[in-house]
């Protein structure tokens, strides 16, 4: 499955990147292809292109704040979870996708 994801936390110093690293790792374990955009203190990094989003089966938002440029994801199925979920139980997020 092709997945795109966005991570964002209040200060954008630590958790945004920890969650990104975690999602990338667990997605691989599940055999998914994933690209994670981080919206932290350095702004948007590893930006999801129009193409990335169009090809994705699903978008995961692991965020504590508003996603920037959210309109890019119009027409894509989105699962939104608190960022902590991506650190605590990332497996849960992906196992839900199986169904």
């Amino acid at each position: 499955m092709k997945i795109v994801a966005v991570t964002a936390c209040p200060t954008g110093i630590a958790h945004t990147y920890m969650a990104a690293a975690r999602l990338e790792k667990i997605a691989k374990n599940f055999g998914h292809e994933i690209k994670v955009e981080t919206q932290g203190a350095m702004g948007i990094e590893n930006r999801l292109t129009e193409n990335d989003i169009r090809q994705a089966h699903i978008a995961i938002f692991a965020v504590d704040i508003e996603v920037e440029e959210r309109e890019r994801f119009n027409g894509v199925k989105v699962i939104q979870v608190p960022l902590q979920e991506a650190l605590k139980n990332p497996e849960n997020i992906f196992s839900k996708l199986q169904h």
Partner: protein
Amino acid sequence: MTQEVSTSLQFVFSCPLSSGLHARPASHLAEVVNQFASDCTLTNLRNGLMANGKSVLGIIAADIRYSDQCAVRVSGEDEHSAHAALRQFVAEALPLCDVPLAVSAAPIRSNTPPRPLKAAGVSCSFGVPVSRGIAHGKVVIVSRMTLPSSLSTPNKTDSQKELDHIKDAVAAVRRRIGEKLKYSITPAGTAVLQADLAMASDVFLVEKLTEQVLRGKSAGQAVVETGEFFIDLLRHSDNEYVRERSSDIEEICLQLLEEIYGASPGSAPVALHEPSVVVAETLAPQQLLELDRRWLKALVLEYSGSTSHAAILARSLGIPTLVGVRNARLVLPPGSEVVVDANRGLVVSYSLAAVRRFYGREQQTLQRRRELWSRQTEKPAITLDGQRIDVAANASSVEELVIAFENGADGIGLFRTEMIFLGREYPPSEEEQFAIYAEAARTAGGRPVVIRTIDIGGDKRVPYLNLPPEENPFLGYRGARIYAEHHQLLQSQLRAILRASALGQVQIMAPMISSLEEIVQFKDAIIQAKQHLIRNGMPFQPDLKVGIMVEVPSVAFILDQLCSEVDFFSIGTNDLSQYFFAADRNNSKVNELFSVRHPSFLRFLKQIVDQIRLAGKWVGMCGEMAADIRNLPLLVGLGLREISVPAVEVREYKRTVSRLYASDCGVMVERSIASAKVLEVDGLLGQQPLQAAQPLLARELILLGSTSKNKEEVIQEMVDAFYVASRTEDRHLLEEALWAREAVYSTGLGYGFATPHCKTDAVAADSICVLRLREPINWDSIDGERVRMVVLLALRNSEVANNHMQVFSTLARKLMNEDFRQHLLEVETADEATTYLAAQLGTAMTGER
């Protein structure tokens, strides 16, 4: 012989001071009146109260408020000059008399205990710190001295005898204060005693005492009733400062009683036998001075005045002091052990285990910070190729001098004295100046202090100098040029400086010297001052060094002659460059012509430095050019071996010197003076490797083996590490920024790791701090596991866009990697940890080896 008929002279003025004619302006007014023999009466036309102009207390008692009309009448043999002087004083000086007292009260913190104490449920009392520090001891309550309400004294026998008693007592009290003045070691203490002396000598006080006796009172009763009269008068003032003087008059009266009866009828002096915290409603200076300094550890006062004499004295003696502590005498039981934290502004029982633990750790933190600080600042500044550069500081006050030495200054390259002369109606006395210079010399502890004699010109208003306003004061009558006319003024300053030279390594420097004659005259004046001191048996350093400011270009062409007259030179670039370019720095139309980095000016400086060094004399720089750290490579390259810089920047200069090669700097200066324009010089300077930013990692920020017991203590310990490393000066702000983030949700990320973080300018540099716990603690982690490893990230708010964020995000991602976490859990030393992190994150590190 004609009989001189005394006709009184009179004028009316309206009080220009918003807080009325209170103690300080009243004392200035009385000072003027007392210079004349004539009598002077002040009448407040609003309430009809009259006062003797020679009495400070009398003037205060007339209750002269803002815009009250006052009649001044003078009569006597010198009434014309007295009248003229008073009119001038009222018109010119009086409106300026209300400058607020300098009070260095610390900022008041919100009244919350430190986090670890709050977590332990400890409650504290809060107050305003007026003298910093932390100390603990047993509570000793000192009751305030009060005048007895009635005296069981025999009825008076003979009013003449009682009057004699009073006269003797007043004289004895004045002697007593005079004696203390001789041994006063701080300017603040001297000022307090001088105020007391003025009050004890007040004519109105003596008048009231006499009046009471003549009404049939005994000497003792007269003192009590006179005291009550004045206390009542002062206590009802709208002005806090005046109200505080009521305790001074009370103290004077108590001393009078003591003289009359041989012992104080007030409270007996309190004897201290062990480390003590003295708690009182308020404390008279006399009471404070009587306490045993060996055991007096801290002061806690309920009274909230920060200008009280007790507060001023406590500060000058360095006793941690809190004022405005509500109900202190009720909540702090006598004999109980308490800690006074006059840094945070709280007092708390020392018998609680949590408090002992907190302050034990605090003591260690302060100790470590002091050690690291002095290790870093005491080191001389040496370039990478071994050239030592003395980094001295400029100072205008003893306070600034203290800051300079705390920052590791090798000396004071320029002690300005203008502040002592400005903003007053009369020149400072020799004693007043001596007290300041002596404290400067003592504080310097053997390091040189170059005191520059008064440098004032027509751009400053100094009533007693009568300097005429000038078209162009910078080319006019100023600096050493006024010395011939103001001979006495210079003499008293030179005597004060010479006397201070017996106490430390003091040197004298003359400003605005432009010719050989001037320095010869200046040296003659020093000889004259020395002779005066010899005649009076006062000690001074006979071979005290004399130098000049190099700030007039003409000096550059007679250096050979000057070198045989003076011991040292200090280049003042502010004026030198202005005169050199004939361009006013403050004139925007011409200030582009002006740059201390212009090749022509650099050539000029090089000539000066080379010539002086060739003659074997010492040359330094104290001007603005030295105050800009970007110029440092030029100064080193010019061959200057001493520079004098702003006090707070000494440390930064020393650090920067140690990152330079003197030889490179020399080459750069050669290339600079061969350049055509400032831009080229700036370009060359830009290529010099100057300050590297503080790196993210430092050994002092790696804390392996922490014994903290909870989250509060861990965060406290890490914040303390920032403080020890001088990466924060505001621990409270940093701590609260971290807790604000914890409040969103816990940063316990699982696997036994937590990553508290914040963005705040409370940190001096972006930093990573690592702490490993001996015993894991609860952090409300998402996996419920206890935390063993804490990685703290602090980013400055102002520079979010910098590249450190890249390192932080790398670190955050790495923390998701099990191998990385395992490695951190197993590192053995701080060195190993920094090396590992630096390699993993691709960043530099620093720290004390």
